[in-house]
């Protein structure tokens, strides 16, 4: 079909969107697959169990949780599951800047990694009980008679429905349903004496609701699958999905009882996913850029400088700037960030093994290289060639 990505271009597009792009080591095992077989294989990555933490792992060693997560992304075994966890981390954005307990952040990541591809209903109920989230949105301050509305608001605005799909009354009533849902040390607890047992009216339904009842009500509203489908499309597929495309995917999500894996599969197999106009239409975020560049250059360990670099590019894992999550698209292209991308490209270029360097145009672009880039690469030595490929504009898009 004209206008559609085909062959290895389609497969590489799939790997960039559902993971962190092909690596110098594994591209040859993907490049000959049909697109549909490649989709089967990335979907199977969603079932890859979360790897065991390294033997000497200590979440309290500064940077360790980011390091281990980046290592998992770089390894690529469960690439789609890690990318999906990154999506949920941005969606339920919680920052260690307030929590100041990396063990709790690590547990939240485990929730996204383990339950991210299952039922959205179960995932949100997991978030209700997530201690990092409880601390993030002041769950322990939410008590009968003195509701704290922080979680009730963001649960609707940012997590399930989107702005404009709830009233201030819904916020107040939902806050009451969550009264007493708090934490003690690292554990979720329901503090019965703080819980409001009265009737609440939430989106037109009345009853003695608690936090889980609220989630059942919210995810059953038509706005919920629409909101999530739109976000999935913008993150994985293309920047400006139409209302019809969102409605279609929302319909799938509803008919599959909010199963995320089934929703993602429908998205990946929809013609729009391979539409040429969406080819390289998204801007790589800092994590995507760094991991994608390391993979393309054949580097298999996460260098220490990455931690400072992703900070200056605007994305420290476990430290999103606000509960709204990270920016996207043009928002990543601040000038300080681009200069930092060039710097990192230079470092990766200098460290890349010669074998991978010979192959990088194929791994990064499947040979589909604009003339402008090809001209520029002439007469460059190997490290500068790699640096120019990774730091140039084409590689910032995926």
């Amino acid at each position, binding site marked *: 079909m004209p206008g559609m990505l085909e062959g290895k271009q389609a497969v590489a597009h799939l790997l960039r969107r559902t993971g962190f792009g092909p690596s110098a080591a594994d591209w040859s095992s993907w490049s000959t697959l049909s697109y549909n077989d490649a989709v089967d294989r990335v979907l199977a990555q969603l079932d890859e169990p979360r790897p065991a933490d390294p033997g000497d792992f200590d979440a309290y060693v500064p940077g360790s949780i980011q390091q281990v997560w980046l290592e998992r992304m770089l390894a690529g075994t469960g690439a789609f599951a890690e990318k999906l966890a990154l999506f949920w981390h941005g969606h339920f954005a919680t920052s260690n800047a307030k929590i100041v307990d990396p063990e709790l952040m690590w547990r939240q990541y485990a929730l996204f990694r383990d339950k991210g591809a299952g039922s959205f209903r179960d995932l949100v109920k997991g978030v209700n009980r997530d201690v990092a989230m409880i601390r993030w949105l*002041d769950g322990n*301050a939410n*008590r009968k008679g*003195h509701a*704290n*509305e*922080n979680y009730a*608001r963001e649960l609707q*605005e940012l997590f399930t429905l989107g*702005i404009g799909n709830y009233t*201030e009354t819904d916020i107040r009533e939902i806050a009451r349903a969550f009264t007493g849902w708090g934490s003690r040390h690292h554990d979720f607890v329901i503090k019965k004496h703080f819980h409001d047992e009265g009737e609440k009216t939430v989106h037109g339904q009345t009853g003695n609701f608690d936090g889980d009842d609220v989630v059942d009500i919210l995810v059953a509203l038509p706005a919920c699958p629409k909101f999530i489908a739109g976000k999935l499309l913008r993150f994985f597929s293309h*920047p400006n999905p139409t209302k019809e495309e969102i409605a279609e995917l929302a319909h799938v999500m509803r008919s599959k009882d909010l199963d995320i894996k089934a929703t993602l599969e429908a998205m990946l197999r929809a013609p729009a996913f391979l539409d040429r106009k969406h080819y*390289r*239409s*998204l*801007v790589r975020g800092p994590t995507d850029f760094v991991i994608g560049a390391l993979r393309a250059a054949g580097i298999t360990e996460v260098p220490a400088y990455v931690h400072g670099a992703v900070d*200056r590019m*605007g994305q420290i894992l476990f430290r999103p*700037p*606000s*509960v*709204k999550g990270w*920016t996207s*698209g*043009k*928002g990543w*292209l*601040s*000038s*300080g*960030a*681009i*200069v*930092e991308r*060039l*710097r990192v*490209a*230079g470092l990766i270029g200098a460290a890349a093994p010669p074998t991978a360097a010979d192959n990088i145009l194929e791994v990064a672009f499947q040979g589909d290289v604009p003339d*402008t*880039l090809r001209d*520029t*690469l002439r007469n*460059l030595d190997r*490290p*500068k060639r790699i*640096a*120019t490929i990774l*730091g*140039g*504009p*084409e590689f*910032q*898009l995926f």
Partner: protein
Amino acid sequence: MILNRRQFLGGAAAAGAVLALPRLALGDARRAAAQKILVFLHLNGGNDGLNTVIPYKNPRYRTLRPGLAISTGQVRKIGDKLGLHPGLNGFEALWKRDRLAIVNGVGYPKPDYSHFRSTEIWFTAEPEKTPTYGWIGRALDGSKSDAPLRAVALQKEQPLSLANATPGIVTMTDFRRFRVPSGLEGASDLYKRYGDMAEARGEVGRAGAQALEVAGKIAALRPAGGPFYANIGRDLRMAISLLKADLGLDCVQLSMGGYDTHSNQTPSHQRLLSQLGNNLNNFQTEIEKAGLGDKIVTVVMSEFGRRANENLSGGTDHGSAGPVFVIGKGVNNGFHGEYPSLDDLDNYNFKYTTDFRRVYASVLKHAYRMDPKPILGDFEPLELFA
């Protein structure tokens, strides 16, 4: 569809009246005469206006704030009925030097209590529309300037206030990071060549080319010295260097976080306001010493004030209207706008008395010598400048 600058201006000219922007105003006027630079500071999180500018004689204040009210003895009484938080000795000093205009009760109709949405509203000045460009960004679009550096945000992400159709908006957190590594000249050239391409390639190309062009200039700067401290102090030191460097800037935006004081507010609010006041007072002194006093107007805003009554966590929840501070030589030092009623509240939220676009209108008129109407709509500018 993403338009580059040429297409944007060309298309607008072809469409005749579509682009009702005052294209004369900014760039030309600046070169001609008294164009000023706007320093726009966002107190991120929602500053508690009631404990910032305090109606200390109103008994209702103490009823609403049994735990958080500032005792009358501690209030810095700069007016008959209104005073400043004890941490704001810096603002009191500015006030005594005729450098501080305080606008009370600033907000907008149908207040939104979400940080994000309310920030969007303040940054775009378009409460009824899906946000696209910022209010400062639109003002910059109104100018013919092709300066590669129009506005700097001293933060990691470009704030929506500066988003616009034309290039020249730069974000940064550290000057030294603008040194481009050697050997990447080819990559730099690629960004320029991508700038003429469509869609995402063009966007990446233009953003990159712009970054690299200004990088050299910025890499040579060092933060100014002076009695500054904390993150806001560090950012103001950078601001001073940028302002002194004569880069053709129209705006420097800063953000100071920590104002979302849902719990245990008293110590954190004291610390925040003390840092804010001292650093801004010193900033004003430094820029006047550098001979830039007539060139700079500082506006300090927050996305909302906080609720009039305190909560049970020793803090305050998201609210509505709050004060805006306009600092500089030539301001009408004093209070502007009516302090919102503490009796006539809406669910414990203040009813705004002055639309924030009246503040912006005054700033655009005075600082950029431009007709604010095409940017903001029909809002009567406040008399904030002498």
